[in-house]
């Protein structure tokens, strides 16, 4: 006979514990499915190679455009990562199960964003190696480079989680998400490119200002996500 209806439940966990639970689940899904390693990573590297094919006649342009091409490749890969992250939440009634759970919606948001962010950081590390090898460019300001990647990734992951859940309940989500997302993350493309350009050209002073802009963007979307995720989850 089953135990009596639960009256001895564990105390409600903090938002961060909920976030860790959701992120851990997403990392386990990746460990089993290997979508990031098996599909997103090859896709991102393929984009770099195609850029090289398109611009190779003039190697100098390719080198100058490296920061922008890097972040374009990140943005394209990000769209696939977000679609994947939220497709697992909409399959077979999972989104209802999330609503019925005792997880704090803000914790779900932070967990999804953290999971997406970790996947993006892996992709960005691989892309950095890719541009170094394929385009023959070597950055100098490693600290600025790392800070830019961290802040830009946080912003992309937070904005992506917000728009991912917004589009999750729609039949046209796969085509709608890029239309919604790309204009929103345009500041990340601009600031990331400028900060990377500074890191490649050893003019890090200007780069740090762009990095600060990325941090503001990330903080803004984290705060918006914490408050807006619940109503969006209700509507999805």
């Amino acid at each position, binding site marked *: 006979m089953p135990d009596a*209806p639960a009256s001895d439940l*564990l105390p409600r966990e903090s938002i961060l514990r909920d976030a860790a639970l959701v992120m851990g689940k997403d990392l386990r899904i990746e460990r089993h499915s290997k979508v990031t390693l098996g599909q997103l990573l090859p896709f991102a590297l393929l984009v770099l190679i195609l850029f090289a094919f398109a611009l190779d006649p003039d190697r100098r342009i390719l080198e100058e455009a490296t920061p922008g091409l890097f972040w374009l490749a990140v943005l394209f890969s990000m769209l696939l990562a977000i679609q994947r992250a939220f497709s697992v939440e909409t399959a*077979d009634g999972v989104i209802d199960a999330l609503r019925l759970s005792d997880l704090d919606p803000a914790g779900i948001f932070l967990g999804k964003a953290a999971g997406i962010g970790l996947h993006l950081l892996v992709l960005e590390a691989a892309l950095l190696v890719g541009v170094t090898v394929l385009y023959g460019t070597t950055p100098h300001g490693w600290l600025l480079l790392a800070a830019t990647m961290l802040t830009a990734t946080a912003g992309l992951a937070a904005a992506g989680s917000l728009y991912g859940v917004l589009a999750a309940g729609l039949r046209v989500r796969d085509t709608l998400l890029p239309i919604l997302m790309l204009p929103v993350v345009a500041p990340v493309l601009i600031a990331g490119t400028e900060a990377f350009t500074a890191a490649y050209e050893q003019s890090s002073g200007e780069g740090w200002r762009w990095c600060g802009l990325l941090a503001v963007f990330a903080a803004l979307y984290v705060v918006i996500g914490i408050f807006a995720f619940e109503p969006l989850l209700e509507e999805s």
Partner: protein
Amino acid sequence: MDAVVRFRAAVCLLGRFPALAGVDLDVAPGEIVLLQGPNGAGKTTLLRACAGLVPVTEGEATVLGVDLVADRRPVRPLVGVLGHRTGLYDDLSVAENVRFWSRAGRSRVADADAALARLGLDGRLADVPVAMLSAGQRRRTALAILVARRPRLWLLDEPHAALDQDGRDLVDRLMTDAVGAGATVLFASHELDRARAVAHRTVTVAGGTVSGLLDGAVAAPAAEPAGEVPVA
């Protein structure tokens, strides 16, 4: 004792279509109530409304003391839902799914492991990805989550569907055991002979309304509830 479910002239709109068009329903603590009716009658919507998954736009609706018209979200952690869709992650194993959803419902890992054993999922099946399961095995996994969470109100939509004979018998035992332990069960089924055998009473849903009662208006629960149920 106050009703676990109390609906008065409750209306639920799906878009502009009134899926529930003025439902009156009372379910007492410790009851097993069967919802019967044709496809599209509103049984699933009624169960989802009880779970706080669809809004009640008019009338009164109280479940486990929670006023669903005012705010339906607080009722969700108190109920367990088994719907047509199982709510499982395909890429996670059976055990990973049950443990994740148990923790998401603030249950202990030990409860999840006990539920896996109860549903016969603690052997080699525990490590199998859900994507590789049969429909019946997925159903068992979803039931294991329900057992682990020990909800106060079980809301089951076609709980016998896709299950083999053993599985169907197990579902019946789970319902009676849950009621024996103090929970309440509201379920919809088209397998009327089996369902009526386990239900204390039957309610007919048709055209978005509860149109009649069968087997007596209120039948005494088979077992006295052992646990406390919140009152309105």
